[in-house]
């Protein structure tokens, strides 16, 4: 059936490799341009927040990385589910490619969150629900990567970690809710507010552009890592000979 050909192509490593090879530079290029424009917009053009002054500018790095860390986990879990259901090797490779990037950006979201927290709360670490959830997300990534590293047989490691990713993504909303509940019981409401309820357009557009830039950037990195994974996994296949010589 014609409508299914794209799906079959998605399952074919040489096709995906060629696709990634063709498109990585486009995604990467647009991501770089968007990132620079958004940086200028956020750091130079946007007015400071009336409460937080220029400290609010950290939103342009903290929010996109925090969002990305969660988005990568979701992408990983979706890839894992697809891989499990349709026994698709490319999807396993994609899930494997997601994990290290996601873990890195979770660390960055935590780090920028702490740097933002110091001037706002007076301490680097406060048991704020968002920071706490982010920390647990980091543990989820570490568990995933630990399982992958702990199983020698690559095909077993693929499928076991895929099950874990799916279980983890079911758990993420529950963790988020429970942490918020826990926080509301134990903590006085946080003083951190993101500017006025309605953000100024001058503040908003660099943020939205930054989200877009990070999404494009992630796609570019994912495609590159995916190519590396495919080469390693398909080393005995004949198409590898053509693409590396």
């Amino acid at each position, binding site marked *: 059936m014609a409508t299914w050909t794209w799906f079959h192509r998605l399952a074919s490593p040489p096709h995906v490799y060629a696709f990634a090879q063709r498109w990585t530079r486009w995604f990467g290029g647009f991501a770089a341009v968007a990132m620079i424009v958004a940086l200028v917009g956020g750091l130079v053009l946007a007015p400071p927040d009336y409460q937080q002054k220029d400290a609010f500018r950290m939103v342009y790095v903290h929010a996109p990385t925090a969002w990305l860390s969660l988005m990568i986990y979701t992408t990983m879990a979706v890839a894992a589910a697809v891989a499990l259901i349709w026994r698709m090797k490319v999807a396993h490779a994609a899930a494997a490619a997601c994990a290290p990037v996601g873990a890195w950006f979770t660390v960055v979201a935590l780090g920028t969150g702490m740097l933002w927290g110091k001037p706002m709360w007076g301490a680097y670490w406060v048991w704020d629900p968002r920071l706490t959830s982010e920390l647990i997300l980091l543990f989820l990534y570490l568990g995933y990567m630990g399982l992958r590293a702990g*199983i*020698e047989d690559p095909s077993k490691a693929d*499928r*076991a970690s895929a099950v874990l990713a799916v279980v983890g993504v079911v*758990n993420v909303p529950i963790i988020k809710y429970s942490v918020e*509940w826990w926080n509301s019981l134990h903590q006085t409401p946080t003083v951190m507010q993101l500017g006025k309820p309605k953000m100024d357009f001058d503040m908003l557009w660099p943020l939205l552009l930054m989200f877009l830039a990070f999404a494009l950037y992630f796609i570019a990195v994912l495609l590159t890592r995916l190519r590396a994974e495919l080469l390693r996994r398909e080393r005995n296949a004949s198409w590898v000979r053509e693409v590396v010589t």
Partner: protein
Amino acid sequence: MRTSAINAARLVALRDLRLAFRKPSQLVQPLMFFIIVATLFPLTLTPEMSRLRDAAPGVLWIGALLSSLLALEFLFREDAVDGTLEQFALSGQSLTWMLFAKTCTHWLLTGAPLALAAPVAAAALGVPADAMWGVVASLALGSFAMSLVGAIGAGLTLGARRGGVLLSLLTLPLTVPILIFGADATELAISGADFSAPMYLLGAIAVLGVTLAPLAAAAAVRIGLE
């Protein structure tokens, strides 16, 4: 005549019960561990009962979590080594049901005794006698949910080297909601308040665990058997 799924699950549970009573040391050890951890806390914290009482929910729940992780390592490992799990997988019965039966039995043998022994540890931490019912109930429900989540981890680490540490690494973040609601229920019980709200949430997690965890555990065990 082919055995029904329920009867197969019942037999799995009966076999595990019989095996456990032939080798009781494996049952007693996690329980001892829990009691010792809980009673060592005053030595590191303070002998002052009022301050210990504040720390009691945390101590009890961390102790229960660690001891249940300790026990979970043995949930599937022996059966994987001696070929019992292969036998389950090839029995023509639903592996999900049989693993669910195993997990429930495991809880009956580790989690339930732990909840029943908790008043001893709780009393040592200055928890008043009126609160014991809440302590037992919250730990019983919470340890059941932990067993279900842990069964997934135990299945996933079957194929791994040094599965024990890995099992903790995988399972701990997944148990965060159980820990939060459970410790909250215990805390409310100790302070004499109504602890039904966190218990409902804990129950909701257990129900979700009952429906999803055995499926995931069965998928994990199948992968581990290869």
